[in-house]
């Protein structure tokens, strides 16, 4: 018996397999979206938090930092920055505001972003 291995079958497996796993992925996505409200603390998602996200995005913070591990690996993770700064918002704000414009000789330094008071509170 000559071995049978047809292009038509390989094609069917590609299409069938792809559709199968796309459907499975959508099913899992559906479940995820359904349970997210119980997990993501969306009740606390205030205007101020949304503004904070915009500040984070419009200053390209993840060009250096990570947030939940995603971003660049040049500067520390920010998901835990509040804890690392002794749970003090003031300390974080002061740190951001005090970055020297010309940097620190020989060392990595965060740029001076000139955040407004409002941006600072939100961020």
């Amino acid at each position, binding site marked *: 018996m000559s071995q049978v*291995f*047809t*292009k038509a079958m*390989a*094609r069917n*497996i*590609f299409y069938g*397999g*792809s559709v199968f*796993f*796309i459907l*499975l*992925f959508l099913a*899992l*996505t559906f*479940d*995820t*979206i359904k*349970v*997210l409200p119980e*997990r*993501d603390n*969306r009740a606390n*998602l205030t205007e101020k*938090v*949304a503004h904070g*996200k*915009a500040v*984070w*995005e*419009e*200053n*390209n*913070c*993840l*060009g*250096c930092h*990570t947030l*939940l*591990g*995603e*971003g*660049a*690996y*040049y*500067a*520390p*993770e920010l998901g835990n920055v509040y804890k690392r700064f002794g749970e003090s918002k003031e300390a974080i704000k002061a740190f951001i505001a005090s970055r020297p*414009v*010309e*940097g*620190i*000789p*020989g*060392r*990595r*330094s965060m*740029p*001076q*972003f000139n955040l407004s008071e409002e941006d600072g509170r939100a961020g």
Partner: protein
Amino acid sequence: MLQYKSQAVAKPYFIAAIALFIGQILFGLILGLQYVMGDFLFPEIPFNVARMVHTNLLIVWLLFGFMGAAYYLVPEEAETELHSPGLAILMFWIFLIAGALTVLGYLLVPYARLAELTGNHLWPTMGREFLEQPTITKVGIVVVALAFLYNVGMTILKGRKTVVSLVLLIGLVGLAVLFLFAFYNPENLVKDKFYWWWVVHLWVEGVWELIMGAILAFVLIKLTGVDREVIEKWLYVIIAMALITGIIGTGHHYFWIGTPEYWQWWGSIFSALEPLPFFMMTVFAFNMVNRRRRNHPNKAAMLWALGTGVMAFLGAGVWGFLHTLAPVNYYTHGSQITAAHGHMAFYGAYVMIVLTIISYAMPMLRGREAANSNRSQVVEMWSFWLMTVSMVFITLFLTGAGILQVWLQRYSDDPQPFMVVQEKIELFYWMREVAGVIFLIGLVLYVISFFVGQRQPEASAKPLPAVSPAEA
């Protein structure tokens, strides 16, 4: 010598790809230096800006490469002229100018100002990794992609429909469709990240593998003379494996972003199998070459074709697997290990496949019969080895840095702060930078290979030794 004269539109795409590649590597070297000399070019080009340029140039030049590849191979596969060469050239300039303006925007004004100038508050999409482009640039990308798909699609429709061009088209359509998720940026961070991966992961571990497979299949058909039927059915099997493992494999990005815990299992299980399609691609390439029916004079292209299989398997397959299981990723997530994987995977899979098609097509695009002169090929092969070996070392050094970082910062009994650890692993960063310089030398040689031996005759291929039919 082109079979169809409209294939010539591929040439500017390839040239632009190489030019942007050089830019990408220069910025890579800047970044590498900033890792060890923190104030280098500060505040003129801060790290975040340089990184954005580095990664965005990569994506843009790979897209140039993919489009060039499509414009080159689709007419040949469809056995007809391109639907509209004029549209292809127009889109080339639009894409190039839009890309250049965006990069200039990154470099010349602060990012926040760029966001303001381009009206990011009207429809915020900026400031997310790899999707840093202003919203207007993103719209431009969609327009270019649509015009490109229209052009290629019409060509395929009116001509011969082969598996290679069909798979390429599916990959390119997938690329365009998934990019639309770049426009969805909810305020909810979990949802933002969830769908952001639909662009990033489903690109590089999904539809881009289709594009890669199609280009590799095309080049192998041309180089080896192996029966198209055989190559095409293996193409189907490989891309089937890619999607079977890769789609649910998205789950390995849903471990720690607030999504349900079951993703840790689904993601780990399926990504454990993600090396499979890349492994098959390697076996496939070597098998086809072993079974070749002719020796093609373009040995450099052959080297790239084999190299991309091996390096994609190592970079995407092995280095991906190293840190993809949830219990391992718990420690390694977002460390230099990720960077190591990213570098070799992108180089092995996508940089090298674009260089493969360029290597194969450029001689014809420049009026040669089938290949460059021997001298030019020798220089090109030197560049292959310099770039590839130095990329292996970049990856190894970053892996070393990553292991040490994970140990000192996360695993040890006495975890140390990020910046303290960064200083301790500085040696690895220096070595990475040295390897990066060698990579640049390889790239310079690559460019030189286009200019040497131009007046020399084409390389010729030794005919295959006669084999008995039983072995053939």
